[in-house]
């Protein structure tokens, strides 16, 4: 598969993500400053500005990690939601490209993971952790997901079920 990297940063709520993804893929994964150095890229989206450089990086497969603000969950901070919406649009557009096709998907997590605190519950009665996110990212990066393209995986204990944008 080649090198998988994380860009542009690992927020405090996602501390340990690079190591956890690397463990699952069986190869080291690092946080990089330049998204163009990777074959496969995990993009941690905290605003619209993160999406363009990820597209321009040429990386494939691409996995955008976004908060669930784009579903309309957070009225105080619109920037996270706008970044998430941009990432979903980008993944879908890349997935339908015939020329210079890149496999691109999204993992959606509760918005607060992108801030200082990661622990959270959805309808499922147990906490969601960075390991759960790493499982989803590693799956989408792997050949097991070779026919999964342009999709959004919700790693949120079922919180997305309260939104119409999730089927």
């Amino acid at each position: 598969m080649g090198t998988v990297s994380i860009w542009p940063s690992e927020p405090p709520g996602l501390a340990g993500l690079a190591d956890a993804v690397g463990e699952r893929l069986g190869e080291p994964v690092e946080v990089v400053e330049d998204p163009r150095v990777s074959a496969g890229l995990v993009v941690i989206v905290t605003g619209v500005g993160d999406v363009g450089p990820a597209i321009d990086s040429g990386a494939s497969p691409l996995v955008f990690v976004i908060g669930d603000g784009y579903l309309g969950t957070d009225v105080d901070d619109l920037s996270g939601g706008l970044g998430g919406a941009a990432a979903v649009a980008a993944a879908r557009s890349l997935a339908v490209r015939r020329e210079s096709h890149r496999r691109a998907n999204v993992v959606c997590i509760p918005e607060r993971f992108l801030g200082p605190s990661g622990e959270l519950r959805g309808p499922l009665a147990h906490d969601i952790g960075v390991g759960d996110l790493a499982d989803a990212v590693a799956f989408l990066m792997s050949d097991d997901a070779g026919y999964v393209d342009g999709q959004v995986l919700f790693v949120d204990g079922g919180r997305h079920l309260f939104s119409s944008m999730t089927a």
Partner: protein
Amino acid sequence: MSETRPVALVTGAGSGIGAAIARRLAADGHLVAVNDLDESRVAAMAGEIEAAGGSAIPAVADVSDSAAVDAMFDAVEAAAGPVEVLVNNAGIGGNAAIRNVTDDFWERVLSVDLHGVLYCTRRAVGPMRERRSGSVVTISSRAWLGWWGQSAYAAAKAGVVGMTRALALELASRNVRVNAVAPGIIDTPLLRDRDPERLERLLKSVPLGRPGRVEEVAAAVAFLLRSRAITGQLLYVCGGKSVYAYPDWKDA
């Protein structure tokens, strides 16, 4: 019978996508209860799994018959222990323009593709709730979004999406997860029987430009089964077809 292997019941496991799911779950360490309507297919698949070093037991039943489904679960539980995993895969296709959608046709499609999912899921989740552990994956279809000639099939496959989302919420506090996979065009014997010209036209609606492999559907099912933080998810395995499937694809 190995007591360490959690039991996974896979419906419609005698061929195609269901067979690939049964093989994958056996390889992942499940004891697979192989369901199909066809007794000889069940015996062949169970034999194949055992020959490959896995564990399997036969579970012949028509999923559209609720009494037969209950009896099948009773027999599987008696032979192998609690059913930890249910994969609702059994289904029948149905292509008909609306003028040909008779009451009989509609009922035949819905009885297997929607009612069958209810009967198996209802019976499976009872003990799962009690044990506070279990996982269900139902095979829907990208076609629920709509396609020519698919009114009955789309209604059934949309029905299981709604059922999945409702049950995911209903059973979450009991640690029972309920998810769905929506395949697009998958390379099965059924697909290979199609008129090559029609198939080529159909594949133009797939951005990846190829049909999916049954193993790729099975891998998505296996992923959802092991993902403890995911419930109510509808995961398309469709090569991007669900994103935008305009059939006269300009770049094709």
